[in-house]
């Protein structure tokens, strides 16, 4: 067995052991151990002692880690269904139905003593104060036993049902909220025509829309155009933060060639990555991407380059160690799967057309070549996003029963645009901040100019998204698909991507 496969095997064994012990207890550990036993039996059949040892040790470590987590922050309520209980946590989403409000709550405290815990609850509220995502609330009531058969998502990410009343807890805003609010206020100060929507859109593209500050119409337009990922802080945002941080470093200290410089630059990059994650409020996608970036940076500090799949595995392992309760929540699953889809699309692209397109990109710079090169880049982006979208279809179908046929097209156009706009947004917020701190007229004029440019660019993005969202059939509802069906479709796609055409010689 190769070293890469051995590492993957070890990580899977660790995560299975930890997650099953933490979330579902010892009985699940027994089932996991039985499955692992099959794998160990296979290794024994192959006389691969190293794999047996590594897998068994990883599984044992995972079970120990899960036990520690379960003792520290239980993943299930301590009160039985029907008994009065008090839970507190952050509102994830709110859904108002005809008779009641349904709130998804990330529960972090439970009981009168406010013991730490870590699970999600669906709170049913008949009446009470209006709450929004991001607020902290306390719910007083009782857990309710569910009377329906658990679905695959219920098993992967258990959701406790709670019926009661809520009250809003007033907590000091987090660092990320304070930073984004301050930036939004400064950008509104220099905005000539009180344009809040473009400002919040710009900040959402950099830090994500965790506070739900964007109007519903804008969010639904992005959803229908298939570019919701642009409003969510994700791995690409972490990469952007690293790129931006590298600019002043290279200006001041040059490229990190020597080992000592690599180490210092690695420490600096790690600070940037986790600082960005802190400002983003440790949203799950950013957290996973930060884990992956940490591994890449660490490898870079050692002078090694790592493959995309290796980063994916390592980020899964780090996320599992640091936050096992959220390992298989919908957000984290989507993040992992999206990263996998990007790796697959990239690998498929390199297997298919890298030679031809590299030759096209080597062409000398002239107007005609520039136009061809831009067209080629757009076409490449479109093909890659089409493949990524194809991979995303089964998961989005299973989770949300939605399909956005124009998603690849709008992503291919908007993603490069947003990449270009990111530095503009950063410069815009910086200028607004400087203009606030030092109200010197030339600086204020520059800030106002940046504001005009930024608002115009964001308005253009909004217009384009609205245009795509208005096309017929931009957001299609799909018939429900079972988990097994979604898995089968994923396997089908992977099989198509990796199938070998039989070779016939001589």
């Amino acid at each position, binding site marked *: 067995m190769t070293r890469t496969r051995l590492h993957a095997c070890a990580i899977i064994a660790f995560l299975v052991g930890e997650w099953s012990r933490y979330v579902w207890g010892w009985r699940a550990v027994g089932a996991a151990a039985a499955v692992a036993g099959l794998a160990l039996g296979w290794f024994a059949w192959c006389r691969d002692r190293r794999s047996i040892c590594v897998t068994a040790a990883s599984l044992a470590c995972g079970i120990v880690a899960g036990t520690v987590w379960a003792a520290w922050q239980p993943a299930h309520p301590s009160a039985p269904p029907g008994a009065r209980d008090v839970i507190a946590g952050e509102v994830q989403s709110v859904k108002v139905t005809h008779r009641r409000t349904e709130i998804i709550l990330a529960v972090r405290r439970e009981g009168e003593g406010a013991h730490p815990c870590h699970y999600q609850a669906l709170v049913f509220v008949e009446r009470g104060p209006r709450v929004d995502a991001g607020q902290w609330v306390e719910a007083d009531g009782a857990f309710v036993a569910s009377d329906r058969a658990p679905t695959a998502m219920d098993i992967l990410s258990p959701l406790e049902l709670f019926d009661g009343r809520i009250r809003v807890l007033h907590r000091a805003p987090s660092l990320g909220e304070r930073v984004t609010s301050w930036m939004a206020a400064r950008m509104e100060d220099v905005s000539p025509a009180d344009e809040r929507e473009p400002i919040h859109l710009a900040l959402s593209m950099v830090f994500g829309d965790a506070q739900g500050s964007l109007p519903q119409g804008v969010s639904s337009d992005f959803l229908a155009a298939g570019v919701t990922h642009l409003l969510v802080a994700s791995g690409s945002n972490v990469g952007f933060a690293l790129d931006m941080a590298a600019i002043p470093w290279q200006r001041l200290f040059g490229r990190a060639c020597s080992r000592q410089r690599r180490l210092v630059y690695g420490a600096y990059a790690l600070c940037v990555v986790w600082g960005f994650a802190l400002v983003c409020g440790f949203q799950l996608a950013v957290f996973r991407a930060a884990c992956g970036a940490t591994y890449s940076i660490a490898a870079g500090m050692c002078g090694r380059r790592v493959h995309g799949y290796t980063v994916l595995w390592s980020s899964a392992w780090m996320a599992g160690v640091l936050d096992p309760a959220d390992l298989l929540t919908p957000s984290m699953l989507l993040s992992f799967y999206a990263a996998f889809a990007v790796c697959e699309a990239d690998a*498929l692209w390199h297997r298919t057309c890298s*030679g031809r397109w590299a030759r096209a990109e080597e062409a000398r710079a002239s107007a005609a070549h520039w136009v061809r090169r831009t067209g080629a880049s757009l076409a490449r982006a479109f093909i890659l996003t089409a493949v990524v979208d194809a991979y995303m*279809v089964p998961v989005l179908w299973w989770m949300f029963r939605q399909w956005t046929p124009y998603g690849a097209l709008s992503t291919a156009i908007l993603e490069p645009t947003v990449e270009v706009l990111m530095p503009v947004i950063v410069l815009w917020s910086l200028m607004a901040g400087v203009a606030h701190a030092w109200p010197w007229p030339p600086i204020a004029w520059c800030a106002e100019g940046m504001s005009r440019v930024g608002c115009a660019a964001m308005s253009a993005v909004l217009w384009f998204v609205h245009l795509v969202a208005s096309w017929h059939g931009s957001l299609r509802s799909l018939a429900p698909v079972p988990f097994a069906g979604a898995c089968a479709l994923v396997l089908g796609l992977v099989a198509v991507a990796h199938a070998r055409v039989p070779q016939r*010689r*001589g």
Partner: protein
Amino acid sequence: MASSTRDMGGAEGAQDGAKPGQEALRFEDDAGWNVVERGGGPPVWTGEWMEAEAIGHHEGRASFFVRLRSSARYLRMVLLVGLAAGSAWFASRQVTMTTSALHSASPTSETQSAVVQTTEADAANTTALQVDVHGDVRHPGLVTLQEGARVRDAIRAAGGFLHAADAADVNQAALVWDGEEIDIPAATAVDAASQPQSGVQDLGLALAVASPSGHDVSRASRDGAGGRASKHALTAGQKININTADLETLETLPGVGPKRAAAILAYRQAHGPFPDLESLRHVKGIGEKTLAKWKDLITFGASGGGSSADRQAP
């Protein structure tokens, strides 16, 4: 990256560029198709060179596999996207067929009724919402939406607004309920002179007509039986006490139909009187735009203490 002689033509292109004396053949990775370069010579796709060899020695016999292999790189991308898009299209078509079956089925016979009931049961299992959208939309009628859908989705499913200006009068962010009736009013900015004052209009259109003074607002809407009836008009300066108004009085407010009036009443009964304009936002279907229109038309006298006519002079 080294340039490659690979061409869409596959084996032929490789044959043209291949210089066997300069390249070292290497066969690795899953498919063994790597660019190999040695001694500054032009790199070739080794796999294709081997294919070219194969063609040279066994011309015609392996041509099918050679062609398949050379086009497989592109074919698999097309297949991948086609498989995903095709399955999603098929699933979306299933939803559409369920919806159209619901629309087309007329419960005149027992058999048809049974079909409709079965289909409805299926729809209920998939937590789909049936909403009746009419008024200023392109394709009025029943639309099927997913749970958690909003008015915007319903309008989009009904073909979108008939006139772009209609969007100004609708709170598109409101959540929709199963069985809800959504009436899209025509734009309020319609020129008063061009509109009939009697409120007679095309079937299903609710029209907001401005009086010659430009301040009064009256609203005409069809009644439940499909006929046309003009509602009470608010004369200049009159205001409605939102905490004492009954269903009919509430319907005289712009943008309020029977559903929304009932929602206001239900919320008032459940939560007590509305203290201010902002508190009305808690009622389902009422947003910023609606409140802006009501600002000068409603008052908030205490419940029970209002006038019997439910209308107060300013």
